């Protein structure tokens, strides 16, 4: 190839054409431009005038230069210039380009594809047949798909890495004939790689392409001692590095977000890094997966399964018939303690057993029927945790007196004991520190936890082993025995505060947590999985993205038990009935090893200087030059006048300036909406309603301007689909029966608007014919629209609501109709009545919505000359109603703009009073 500097030419002979340029110069110079014919009445005055210079017909030199440049660009362009042309690899015969195609290669997959593309270009130059395969996605049924390199270029985009490693790929390449192999490696060792190498070497030369880069994999998180432990492995082991693990889950609103992050430090020379996440149980229960931040790979994601789920706890009390006295209920403190961290199940024992909860709590239940007892015993044997609390009934019963009850960890003495009461000796007993081998070890015991009554355990040879908490005098407080896979735990005091102050303390919660945490469901083992079919729920792709897997066929439990990821078992979340198992790329013990190549194998890097063909650029430049020449020669020839000049200018401008009209419009809207206070209404699409609403807001704006210090600009109509809402403090939304529902984006915008302190006044305009919620078409539409809005609980405007006194003192809120059904956000139940006003701080005390049907806009509406647009009522009473409607509008806008300031004003008399003293 002919080279000039870094540029090579495919057809250098064409460059000889450049010699012709000077000849062209002379030729072009000699030819004058074609004349323009022009009608001109003044020609009579021109007759006899001759041209001054004989040279005037020559084309100007700069125009000539322009044309010559264009022609030179064409000549050079067709000569096929190439920047950084590739020196072809010498090689003959068939070529196989094999990519590992594992998750480890996902982060720089594009670079690999680029490299393959470059290799294909070389192969095309030497006319070799090529087959490109990924070792994770071999076409096992067919022979190697040899084809022309250019055909492969088009199919490269279809190659994708897979979230598993090659499985038994070597036999495929045996007996496929002789070929040379380019192996694009992900740099990670995996089982069977040596066999592959042997198979390739048997067929011909092998060249390996790989870049040394660090591969990091996140191992599944485990729970230990109430903490989440996350760990990650890396290869190659080297300098210390730091990465971050993010725990991701659904927030209470159902939106996926990062719940916690923890830094993960790889020490120098260490392959594994570990960190602990100490999270409140509420947060911990929400985690669905962990991710290594900044890495796009399946190994950077670790899905959580049942092990991360909330436990199901069934609560059963002995006495349900007791009325009132909630604080004395056996289950009150248990509910309070467990509610945030567990799913509570209520019901009678038989139903509860069918639900197969993780924990059953029996609070002072003494008598169980034989069937119930048998059911519980079976359930405990299968891994359930039975937690029993003592109480008067248990103490009074004969359960566990003579022989050990299977559902009690110890035999009980008759009657129990009381200490520290009015009729007994001694002080109330405190708790002894927890022994190291008990699940409670490490919990600190508050001083004020005392026990006044308890049931007593019968001394027994096994008793010492079964006590896991005891009082200061050595009597057991909590006993436990294992039964089958499960356990039975007895707390020797009541679950309420009758016998001890334990349920009142934080220790109670911590003890419950320790007990319940230690019974998290374990991953099912192989025997349990046998014969089951697991349906993929969400599958991981090689880049670590989750994809819906519900339309794929189920996976047999045996495959799942083997845990070997591959085409048959893609990493992801699998479910059977209500159980879930996560299959992750990296197991708890996976060790990552870098691929080692024998010395005889040539290893090349990934970097490639791309050969850039300049032909297209040059031809484009030639075209552009010719366009400029077109305009320039028109200008020189005097034809660039009038509309043509405009067109030419537009063409030139279009080259340089991209129109930005849309942004300009948005900006204008923003400036208009924010330069002054603007009342806005939602455009319904019904022109009449929109016009009336605009007139109504104009009337209200004028009233505000006249009477108050609020001086709004002209109201604006807002399209909730396209316009930004955040600029407006107040939106008036008239509901029409045929209004389209907002789109999902619009709903998002509206909810943001409501949460950030905006107010929407919904007006169904039907109070004359319908009562609130009585199913008028507008009412039904409002319900449909509001279903997806974040609207708090509502109540009719109470007589002491701040809306009744923000500017005027009002009792009614009429519009054109005078219904009293106007609803605002309900005061919280615990709102303190200060001076008769529920005092709240949410959203600055502004209700986010006001809903009614009084058709306020029509009452406010003014015509262009300032008179009212619609009649209201009859005579003086009607005018009074209009006045009250306007006052309601004034109050409303005051309320929106001043927030809780006005509701604070009700304290002014008190404050003045105090200042006076």
């Amino acid at each position, binding site marked *: 190839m002919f080279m000039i500097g870094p540029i090579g030419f495919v057809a250098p002979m064409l460059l000889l054409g450049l010699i012709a340029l000077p000849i062209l110069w002379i030729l072009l110079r000699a030819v004058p431009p074609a004349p*323009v014919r022009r009608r001109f009445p003044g020609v009579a005055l021109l007759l006899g005038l001759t041209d001054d210079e004989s040279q005037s017909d020559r084309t100007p030199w700069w125009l000539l230069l322009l044309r010559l440049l264009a022609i030179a660009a064409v000549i050079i362009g067709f000569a096929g210039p190439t920047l950084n042309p590739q020196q072809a690899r010498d090689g003959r015969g068939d070529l196989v380009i094999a990519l590992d195609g594992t998750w480890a290669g996902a982060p720089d997959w594009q670079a690999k594809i680029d490299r393959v593309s470059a290799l294909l270009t070389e192969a095309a130059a030497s006319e070799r047949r090529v087959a490109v395969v990924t070792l994770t996605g071999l076409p096992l049924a067919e022979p190697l798909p040899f084809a022309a390199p250019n055909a492969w270029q088009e199919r490269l985009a279809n190659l994708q890495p897979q979230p598993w490693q090659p499985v038994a790929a070597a036999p495929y390449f045996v007996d496929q004939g002789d070929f040379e192999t380019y192996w694009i490696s992900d740099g990670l060792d995996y089982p069977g790689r040596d066999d592959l190498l042997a198979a390739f070497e048997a067929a011909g030369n092998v060249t390996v392409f790989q870049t040394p880069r660090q591969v990091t994999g996140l191992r599944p998180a485990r729970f230990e001692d109430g903490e989440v432990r996350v760990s990650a492995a890396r290869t190659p082991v080297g300098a210390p590095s730091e990465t971050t693990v993010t725990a991701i889950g659904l927030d209470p609103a159902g939106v996926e977000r990062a719940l916690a992050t923890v830094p993960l430090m790889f020490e120098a020379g260490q392959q594994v890094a570990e960190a602990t996440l100490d999270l409140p149980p509420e947060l911990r229960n929400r985690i669905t997966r962990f991710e290594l931040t900044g890495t796009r790979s399946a190994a950077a994601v670790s899905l959580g399964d049942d092990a991360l789920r909330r436990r199901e706890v069934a609560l059963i009390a002995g006495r349900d018939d007791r009325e009132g006295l909630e604080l004395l209920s056996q289950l009150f403190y248990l509910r309070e303690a467990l509610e945030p961290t567990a799913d509570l199940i209520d019901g009678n024992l038989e139903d509860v057993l069918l639900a197969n909860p993780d924990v059953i709590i029996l609070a002072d239940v003494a008598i169980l029927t034989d069937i119930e007892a048998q059911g519980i015993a079976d359930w405990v044997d299968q891994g359930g945790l039975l937690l029993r609390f003592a109480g008067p009934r248990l103490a009074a019963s004969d359960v566990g007196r003579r022989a050990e009850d299977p559902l009690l960890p110890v035999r009980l003495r008759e009657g129990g004991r009381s200490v520290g009461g009015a009729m007994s000796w001694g002080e109330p007993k405190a708790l002894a520190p927890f022994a190291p081998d008990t699940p409670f070890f490490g919990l600190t015991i508050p001083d004020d936890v005392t026990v006044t009554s308890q049931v007593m355990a019968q001394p027994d040879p096994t008793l010492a082993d079964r006590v896991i908490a005891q009082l200061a005098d050595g009597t057991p407080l909590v006993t436990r025995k294992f039964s089958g896979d499960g356990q039975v735990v007895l707390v020797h005091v009541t679950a309420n505060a009758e016998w001890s102050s334990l349920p009142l303390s934080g220790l109670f919660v911590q003890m419950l947590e320790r007990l319940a945490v230690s019974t998290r469901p374990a991953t099912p083992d192989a025997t349990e999985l046998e014969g089951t079919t697991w349906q993929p729920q969400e599958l991981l792709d090689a880049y670590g993205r989750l994809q819906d897997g519900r339309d794929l066929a189920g996976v047999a439990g045996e495959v799942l038990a083997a845990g070997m990821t591959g085409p048959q078992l893609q990493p992801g979340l699998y479910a059977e009935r209500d159980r879930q198992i996560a299959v992750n790329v990296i197991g708890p013990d996976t060790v990552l090893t870098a691929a080692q190549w024998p010395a005889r194998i040539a290893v090349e890097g990934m970097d490639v200087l791309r050969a850039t063909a300049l032909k297209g650029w040059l031809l484009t430049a030639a075209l552009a030059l010719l366009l400029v020449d077109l305009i320039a020669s028109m200008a020189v020839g005097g034809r660039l006048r009038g509309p043509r000049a405009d067109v030419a200018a537009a063409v030139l401008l279009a080259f340089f300036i991209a129109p930005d009209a849309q942004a300009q419009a948005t900006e204008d809207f923003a400036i208009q909406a924010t330069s002054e206070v603007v009342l806005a209404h939602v455009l319904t699409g019904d022109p009449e309603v929109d016009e009336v609403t605009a007139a109504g807001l104009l009337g209200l704006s004028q009233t505000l301007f006249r009477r108050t210090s609020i001086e709004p600009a002209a109201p604006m109509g807002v399209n909730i689909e396209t316009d930004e809402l955040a600029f407006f403090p107040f939106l008036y939304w008239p509901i029409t029966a045929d209004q389209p529902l907002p789109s999902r984006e619009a709903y998002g915008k509206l909810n943001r608007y409501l949460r950030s302190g905006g107010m929407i006044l919904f007006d169904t305009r039907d109070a004359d014919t319908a009562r609130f919620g009585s199913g008028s078409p507008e009412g039904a539409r409002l319900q449909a629209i509001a279903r997806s809005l974040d609207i708090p609980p509502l109540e009719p405007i109470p007589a002491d609501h701040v809306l009744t006194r923000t500017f005027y003192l009002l009792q009614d809120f009429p519009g054109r109709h005078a219904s009293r059904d106007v609803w605002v956000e309900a005061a919280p139940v615990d709102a303190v009545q200060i001076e008769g006003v529920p005092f709240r701080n949410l959203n600055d005390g502004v209700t986010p919505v006001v809903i009614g049907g009084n058709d306020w806009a029509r009452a406010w509406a003014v015509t262009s000359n300032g008179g009212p647009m619609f009649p209201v009522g009859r005579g003086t009473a009607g005018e009074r109603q209009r006045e009250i409607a306007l006052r309601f509008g004034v109050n409303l806008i005051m309320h929106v703009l001043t927030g809780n300031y006005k509701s604070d004003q009700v304290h002014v008399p008190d404050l003045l009073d105090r200042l006076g003293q």
Partner: protein
Amino acid sequence: MTTPLTLRSQAETLAAHLPPLLAEAEHLASTVLLGEHGRRRAGTGDTFWQYRPAQNHDAARSIDWRRSARSDARFVQDKEWQIAQSIILWVDQGASMGFASDDHATKGDRARTLAMALAVLLIRGGERVGLTGLRLPPRRGSLQLQQMAQILSENATTDHGSPDATGMLPHSRALFVSDFLGNIDGVRDALHRAADRGVKGALLQVLDPQEEAFPFDGRTIFQSMTGSVQHETLRARDLKSRYLDRLAARKDELAQLARLTGWQFHTHLTGQSATQALLWLYGALERRR
């Protein structure tokens, strides 16, 4: 385009803008516009002009006894001199008047509109208006306007027309509208003959802005509107200054000619407002009556 009907309506529209010369009217209104033309001097007429002391030559019956009875002297009531004037118009209908550049009106349209507007004003003012030649002698009335519009709408086939000096009443007024780019001999001849008969008037040269600016460049072949005359140049820009010189010389010649014969000369560009030209015309015909 230029049907009699549209021409008439255009002219009426233009004339309507001058609610009989209200623009500069206040001091002229009573005399210039209403009824017969007052001459601002005593003469025969209907309206009162002044009382003057009776002279010897005044007949006794011309003495105003009612006025004289209030004093010792005798007074004669003078009437204002009122007389209707004849105005003859000539509008060049040659093909060169059909030229228009950009989105301006053609020169011919502008010339006809101006002439018709003037005619409308004059007839409203009680004058008699006609065309040169013998086809439409000066008369009054709206029928005259219709006929005039009819005749003005015709187009000639030659490049340039030349004024017909026949049919001019002695001591009447005349208005010639043309671009005056063609042979000037016809104009000179007509003006001399008009001057011979004591006819005074105005020359209005209507030009297109391009004809004044000559914004051409490059190799160009200029053709007259009928294509009968053409001139080729290789660099039109070089011709500009010489063309403009010649145009100025032509205007000078016309102005000189007008001065000699006591006429008024004005150049109007179609890019300018027509009202402006109409005002000038009105003034020019008014001034030296």
